[in-house]
């Protein structure tokens, strides 16, 4: 019964609970960035359920975080397709933080206002921005995830960031209109 011989992760996969504890918040952040809070719960659940399914066969030494983010991305895309089919109305004008640069903002925690702005991007732009700036994946991997070339992924991310800046300026210019907007109920995750 030697504990030192059996350090977590040293032999085969560690208990799945440790994976959920370590990466659960990041996956939720990614799903929210891609989908908004309402559909993010379903994507999170589907991500971890399918990860649990495959977990015993996961190759030793795999990058578990990248693996989960890849699954989360696929599940989120599924959600986006479902949403497109059910023709959810486009959300109202986003509420963007006025003072900070969009890129800096995203490398940290994502707040509700930024999520709303991301919701306004074309799916590819959003996926490229989120995977690169939030998920921290290199463009080559982003390209694989969104099914385009590396150059196109780079361009999508740049276009997405430019669009976020544009939206932010728009928001700064119309700050007084805030009360007219309805970004309450359907964004609530409760």
């Amino acid at each position, binding site marked *: *019964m030697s*504990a030192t011989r*059996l*350090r*977590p*992760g*040293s*032999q*085969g*996969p*560690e*208990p*799945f*609970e440790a994976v*959920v504890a370590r990466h*659960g*918040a990041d996956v*939720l952040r990614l799903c929210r960035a891609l989908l908004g809070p309402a559909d993010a*719960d379903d994507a*999170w*659940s589907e991500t*971890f*359920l399918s990860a*649990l*399914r495959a*977990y*015993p066969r996961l190759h030793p030494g795999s990058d578990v975080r990248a693996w989960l983010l890849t699954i989360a991305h696929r599940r989120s895309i599924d959600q986006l397709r479902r949403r497109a089919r059910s023709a959810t109305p486009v959300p109202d004008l986003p509420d963007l933080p006025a003072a900070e640069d969009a890129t800096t903002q995203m490398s940290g925690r994502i707040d509700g206002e930024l999520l709303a702005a991301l919701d306004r991007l074309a799916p590819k732009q959003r996926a490229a921005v989120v995977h690169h700036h939030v998920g921290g994946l290199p463009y080559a991997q982003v390209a694989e995830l969104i099914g385009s070339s590396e150059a196109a992924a780079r361009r999508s991310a740049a276009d997405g960031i430019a669009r976020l800046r544009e939206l932010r300026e728009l928001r700064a210019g119309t700050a007084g209109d805030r009360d007219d907007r309805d970004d309450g109920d359907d964004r609530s*995750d409760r």
Partner: protein
Amino acid sequence: MTHHDADDLTRLHRRLVDAADHEGILDLTYRSVDSPVGELLLVASPDGLVRVAFEREGHDAVLARLAAEVSPRILRSGRRTDEAARQLEQYFEGRRRDFQVPVDLRLVHGFRRKVVEHLQEIPYGRTESYAAVARAAGNPNAVRAVGSACSHNPVPVVVPCHRVVRSDGSIGQYLGGTDAKAALLALESA
């Protein structure tokens, strides 16, 4: 992470446990319970209690070993383990003399299995010598092997290996420490 996010993750975790169980891929669940002999880890399969571990064994190390030997599909949950925890609390309060929970002995094989099965028949408040257990398990010469089987009992307390003592009346070794063994024997003789 805000408190809100932590609540969301707790809720999503519960949902994951439900879905995994429903799909039949929740191989092991665990929780801990406080006791006079330190915090106990309880781990269960769909068939019953697989493991009870003392604090000194290192709960993380025990879970890592179960991930390697049984399955890495392990999630923290009171599902399957809450009832054992409740009965253990009653036992330590002196309100329970035997445990009515299914036990899964998949971690024990061969002669050790015979020993552990016999241990379940030693009543509350009674003790047996290692030699007597060896005879009962069908191999009177295997006194040392009985000691080894007891010290590798995967479900101590619930399967009462603490009731096996030396022929000279001294209490002998115990996975949870001799103090813990003495405390259990004292509890049962009160």
